[in-house]
């Protein structure tokens, strides 16, 4: 089972994924994948150790797809990509 850690960035709430080297990325494709239970648990612990960086880290299942990683659960796909509906305006996020 391929898994990855995701969380929300503390300061701005952005959805982030734990990448290699303890870096946090907004792109699920760049997330660091754990193939074993032990590795996944270790990644999660590392995420929980930085409460001033991220909030509420948890593990999601991902699958390889078209050279990238895609969350398996529908909910996690929406979370990674954004709302499935158009927002009423096309205004970028502040500071984006």
């Amino acid at each position: 089972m391929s898994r990855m850690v995701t969380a929300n960035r503390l300061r701005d709430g952005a959805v982030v994924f734990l990448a290699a080297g303890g870096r946090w990325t907004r792109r699920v494709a760049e997330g660091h994948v754990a193939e074993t239970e032990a590795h996944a648990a270790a990644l999660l612990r590392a995420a929980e150790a930085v409460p001033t960086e991220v909030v509420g880290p948890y593990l999601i299942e991902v699958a390889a797809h078209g050279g990238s990683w895609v969350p398996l659960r529908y909910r996690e796909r929406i979370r990674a990509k954004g709302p499935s509906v158009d927002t009423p305006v096309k205004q970028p996020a502040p500071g984006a």
Partner: protein
Amino acid sequence: MYAYDSFDQSLIAERVNQFREQVARRLAGEISEDEFKPLRLMNGLYLQLHAYMFRIAIPYGTLNSRQLRTLAHIARRYDRGYGHFTTRQNIQFNWIRLEDTPDILAELAGVEMHGIQTSGNCIRNVTADHFAGVAADEIEDPRIWCEIVRQWSTFHPEFSFLPRKFKIAITGAPHDRAAVKVNDIGLRMHKNAAGEVGFEVIVGGGQGRTPAIGVTIRDFLPKQHLLSYLEAILRTYNLLGRRDNLYKSRIKILVAAVGAAKFAEAVEEEWTRIKDGPLVLPLAEIKRIEAQFAPPQYAPADPFPPEVVAKRQASPAFARWMRSNVAAHRQPGYAIVTLSLKPDGGIPGDATAEQMDAIADLADSYSHGEIRVSHVQNLVLPDVRRADLPALWDRLTALGLATPNIGLIGDIIACPGLDYCSLANARSIPIAQRLSERFADPERQREIGELAIKISGCINACGHHHVGHIGILGVDKKGEEFYQIALGGNADENASIGDIIGPAFSADSVVDAVATIVDVYLDRRQEGERFLDAYRRLGQAPFKEKLYAAH
């Protein structure tokens, strides 16, 4: 509307300082998320699926134009240019940064607004009839009492850590537009035999996992005892409500468990001991607040202005809008105008910053600067001269706010659902959009008549699906979105919880299912019979038959 005095202003200023300091401590790692979470919730900041969602209180759904412009500014400056009006008359922004919230709260405080107690296990925004103060059938303006309850419930030292959230709604009219029977406490103003106005006290209504219609525990409560009586109810709930199970902690569970009569007895006993204490409202305070809700100076106005007569004849679209979106006002020559935030195929309850600014201008031009938010996720201009209706309609049409669907099948309530909300099991907005497109034809909407569709993306029922004439609940079946349909729910004084009609429908088939239900109704209804009445007469059978007929 109510204007803060220096006491009100000091309190929210102190709150802003307190929260600023709490955020700083959290960012610096001095407190954990566990400790911080209840603090940010009590200021209205949720962590949602994509980002922080910030819920700003709009007390009893009443706003002035300056406040609405500030909300537009917040949408533009701190969010993505739009906001969402909720089923409790509040507004939500979906993309707020934690580090910006102290500044946002400071800006809100400048226009007498805040996010206090819009979340958490405390007393939430007290909601009211969105036509309060202007409705033709009103006995008394409930907002006076909403404001009194708002102040009493704000930072209440004893009731800020209840077993669960607590919702209070007040209506001042016999036709209940505030859904008081599905709130934890509903208050219905009415006259006793002596002609005095007081409150019927209804407790234990609510939606969610265990929907319930509230029970009356007191027929008539004199006004000056309102706060002491509420305190007795809340204290009883605080001490006895369950805290072991999140789904069994609302007051409705307690009332059902001990029985309405015993619950009423317990409340009355507690109340007897405190009713003559310091919570008796001094007349001076009642009068002070009443004065702030005094009606504006209405210039004399023609009840049948020729402009309106002419336009109705010239424009079927205008005539249609008048029938559905314009309601009777207590002052002759005036009208109450509902701005539909349900454009065909649109997202129910959303408004852009540009629309908000424009509505603020319209309020200044046409409605004494006041706007209301309805729990059906629309906005209202409460005080429009009938002679202005044609010009207003032109402006609203240009802004996309004149869809003639109020109370009709296009006037859909939908919670944000899985597109935004981390609690959701399924999306609700796309279903609302597709239904809205399917039934877009205004003539067909008129033919169908009064029909409230309400959609929730999970059991928490923020979309009020239990009290929809057609209620839709999104569920997750093996990783796929399915939609369960219930019929016959209703939110007004003849409240009822809808009946689930059968197995859930797939996302692909649910819109057809609703169309089938509508067809059965049109086929079987009697002359002038609304959907709800036809359902109550016919029962489920004819609908089930058509929906689940073997193909």
